């Protein structure tokens, strides 16, 4: 039965089939939740700051705190110069955070539990680093891979490691977020599935279902933490990588 299948929640369904030149760009449930993510994050940021009060209310305060939190993250990792990437990092943080939070609602789709989405966001970061770094520093950008003060004999080896670590960044960045969301949601679904399965076994089963129900509640709280934490981790790593575009010398 699909309701107890922990993988079912990641299935993509076409809501409005659109095909252009043999390319399937149907409006799916994934696309719907991307739109909801943008609407949710946009509504939060715009409605709360609409009155522009000098003494903020609760919502405006929350929006300002989020803004200043991300601004501090970027400033700490990439310096004052890094603030040119602040809108990008802020957009990434809010998008990932709100997508993660939507995913916590039962029957909702988790956009960030799709590897293609997290990979695309990570590639956007890495391509920004590459393109901005090359535009700004021209060939000096490749100093990123050549640490100073390394003996000539082991330099090729060090450069190889640096290149590998650079290449692995988008992979680790995308898989970290994807795997966290995927694993958390599967775990939640499995425990919640135990509740319904045991519940259908009669009185003994209902008593036995208390434990997985408690676990589900606890896991939901944990997932709330993970949702916020992973958005933060994504933003921190993005600003750390963007720092390389600004200061390629180690």
């Amino acid at each position, binding site marked *: 039965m699909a309701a107890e*299948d*922990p*993988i079912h929640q*990641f*299935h*993509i*369904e*076409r809501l409005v*089939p*659109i095909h252009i030149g043999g*390319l*399937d*760009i*149907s*409006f*799916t449930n*994934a*696309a719907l939740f*991307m*739109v909801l*993510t*943008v609407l949710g*994050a*946009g509504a939060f*940021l*715009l409605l709360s*700051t609409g009155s*522009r*009060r*000098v003494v*903020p209310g609760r919502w*405006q305060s929350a*929006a*300002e705190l989020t*803004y*200043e939190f991300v601004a501090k993250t970027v400033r700490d990792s990439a310096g004052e110069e890094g603030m040119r990437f*602040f*809108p*990008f990092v*802020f*957009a990434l943080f*809010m*998008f990932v955070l709100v997508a993660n939070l939507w995913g916590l609602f039962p029957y909702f789709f988790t*956009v960030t*539990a*799709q*590897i*293609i*989405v997290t990979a*695309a*966001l990570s590639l*956007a970061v890495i391509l920004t680093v590459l393109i901005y770094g090359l535009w700004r520093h021209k060939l000096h950008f490749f100093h990123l891979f050549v640490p100073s003060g390394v003996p000539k004999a082991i330099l090729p080896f060090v450069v190889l490691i640096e290149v590998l670590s650079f290449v692995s960044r988008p992979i680790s960045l995308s898989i970290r977020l*994807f795997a966290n969301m*995927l*694993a958390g949601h*599967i*775990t939640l679904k*499995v425990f919640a599935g135990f509740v319904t399965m045991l519940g259908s076994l009669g009185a003994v089963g209902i008593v036995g279902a208390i434990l997985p129900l408690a676990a589900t509640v606890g896991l939901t709280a944990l997932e709330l933490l993970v949702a916020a934490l992973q958005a933060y981790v994504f933003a921190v790593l993005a600003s750390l990588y963007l720092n390389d575009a600004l200061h390629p010398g180690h």
Partner: protein
Amino acid sequence: MAEAFRIQLAQAEPGPAPAPGSETAGTVEPEHKSFPPFDATHFASQLFWLAVTFLFFYWLITKVVVPRISGILAARRERISADIAEAERAKEATEKAAAAYEKQLADARAGAFRIAEEARGQAKAEADATRARIEGDLNRKLAEAEARIGDIKSKALADVGAIAGEAAEAVVKSLADVNVSTQEVGDAVHAALNERR
């Protein structure tokens, strides 16, 4: 978690393989063949919609959200620093006013002291003048009185001579029945008086 994943794969594998060509039917059921996040069928659509939504969101952040919130924060910072400057200014003004008040108070005290001193001096001078005037008056009156006394005294003495002469003339007339001239009696009395003196 990994176990559940494997269970699901095991369940999915033996299921009836979807007939080729039925994939574009628009329904979901035939796409159970792999783990959904790794199923490339919807990659294009996901990338397309992610690009649309995220680029719109990025545009919204850069054009509206960041200017607005940074504007709010800057306005607040300005307001706070302006308020602090205003408070500093007010404090300074208060201190200035307090200093001016102190100075005025001191001035007033000094003025009062000066006026009192002047009044005292004036009163003293007036009193001195009055006393001097009265003393002068008294001295003058004293001198006048002394002069008058002297006058009276000398007049009295002169009268004494005349009376003595008359008395002597009468005495001489009655005793010796000699008529002496008044001139002679007067000279004699004078001589006698001068002798006694």
